[in-house]
């Protein structure tokens, strides 16, 4: 029960990723490593593959995620409400609009920008077939997070986090296990109001993170923080819906591009 749902996908390891890791361990010079790390047998339609992978990176909003939400939607889902002034974390002060009768209010304009960046990154990771892990230690929303992950074909971990899940994965699972390529924290605190251990572990393992940071959270180690409320059920449902739609959209787009490439290659 506590082991989470990380599955071992030893056969799905990408070539360059494994080769790069092995060669860097050997201490070869970078130039020879790079030359040797090129894909050994370049298939004929490699240009199509690279075009599929590189073309979305040239556009600022390839998946048109800005049409998924408006500031009014965020407002009605109560994303802007923070905790009381006494619970405020010092590093969240840039993201606050102000404080009204001791209640902190987050700036939704900044939140909208951060959310756009986070969703865009999620979409690109999902487009390239990355593994996404949802983490939330809020027991009130554990079931919601797990169903969200199931509905978009990704993974979730809403139980107790054992110490070495990421840092000691080859021992705790098996050698050659594939770690997630993106971790999304729907609440960055654990049950005792301390930062979740997964944030620090993901930073150690070079895994990018997206995190919904409330006014009492520490946004330091998170790659794409999204300042917002993480306590109201309506807000969490909105976040889950947005991430699910982003990931599904990205995967559908990838399937569509593969189909087009298949059609153009056969023609």
């Amino acid at each position: 029960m506590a082991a989470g749902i990380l599955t071992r996908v030893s056969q799905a390891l990408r070539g360059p990723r494994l080769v790069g890791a092995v060669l860097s361990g050997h201490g070869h010079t970078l130039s020879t490593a790079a030359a040797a790390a090129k894909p050994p047998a370049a298939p004929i339609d490699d240009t199509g593959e690279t075009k599929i992978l590189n073309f979305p990176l040239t556009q600022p909003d390839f998946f048109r995620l800005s049409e998924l939400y408006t500031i009014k939607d965020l407002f009605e889902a109560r994303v802007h409400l923070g905790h009381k002034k006494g619970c405020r974390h010092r590093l969240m002060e840039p993201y606050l609009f102000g404080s009204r009768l001791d209640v902190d209010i987050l700036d939704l304009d900044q939140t909208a920008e951060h959310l756009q960046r986070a969703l865009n990154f999620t979409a690109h990771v999902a487009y390239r077939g990355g593994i996404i892990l949802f983490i939330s230690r809020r027991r009130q929303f554990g079931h919601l997070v797990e169903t969200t992950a199931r509905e978009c074909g990704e993974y979730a971990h809403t139980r107790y986090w054992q110490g070495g899940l990421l840092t000691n994965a080859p021992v705790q699972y098996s050698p050659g296990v594939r770690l997630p390529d993106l971790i999304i924290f729907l609440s960055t605190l654990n049950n005792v109001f301390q930062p979740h251990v997964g944030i620090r572990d993901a930073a150690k393992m070079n895994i990018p993170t997206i995190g919904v940071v409330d006014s009492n959270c520490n946004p330091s180690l998170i790659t794409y923080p999204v300042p917002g409320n993480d306590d109201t059920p309506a807000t969490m449902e909105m976040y889950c819906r947005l991430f699910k739609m982003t990931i599904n959209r990205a995967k559908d787009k990838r399937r569509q591009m593969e189909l087009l490439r298949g059609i153009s290659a056969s023609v």
Partner: protein
Amino acid sequence: MASLCKVMRNMSARYTLLPKPRVFTTLKSPYSSEVSGSTGEDAGTDDKSAERVKSGFATAYELHSDLQQQQQKGDRSASVRLSSRDETSFISLLRHSPLMQMGPAKDKIVMGKIFHIVNDDLYIDFGGKFNCVCKRPSVDGEKYQRGSRVRLRLEDLELTSRFLGATTDTTLLEADATLLGLLESRDAKPKE
């Protein structure tokens, strides 16, 4: 009509030369030159009569806001002021939201909806960040089901307190409210 026009034209000419502090034009006096400058040659009389019909403050306000928009186009404060007028911006939404208009939460009567029940505890959401938990009252106890609308008197939006030796407040993640009763309006709509 022609004599009236001539009188008004003379008056406008006089105002450009010597803006006297009259009640009618006190608010417009800094802009009176520009007004007559812009409307001097074309239908000045009609314009003047139209302005005469509108009260002086209304026209002055419009002029002032137009000039403000022209002068402070790139200014940050202007964008804040303009966005508070734009109905869908965050600032204007916040300003007109019930939570802000309400003021301090102490002793305010609000409407809530029960979304979860555990034996005798009712978890009620009233639109704030947190929900409140109230005991099921002895009178009409079985009428309080999931989806019932109730009246609450708020005490606090979030129960927090700083304990000795702590750096931050400890929060209970809950609001505090007293249950007043079911919502009186009989809507004849069946409860979900």
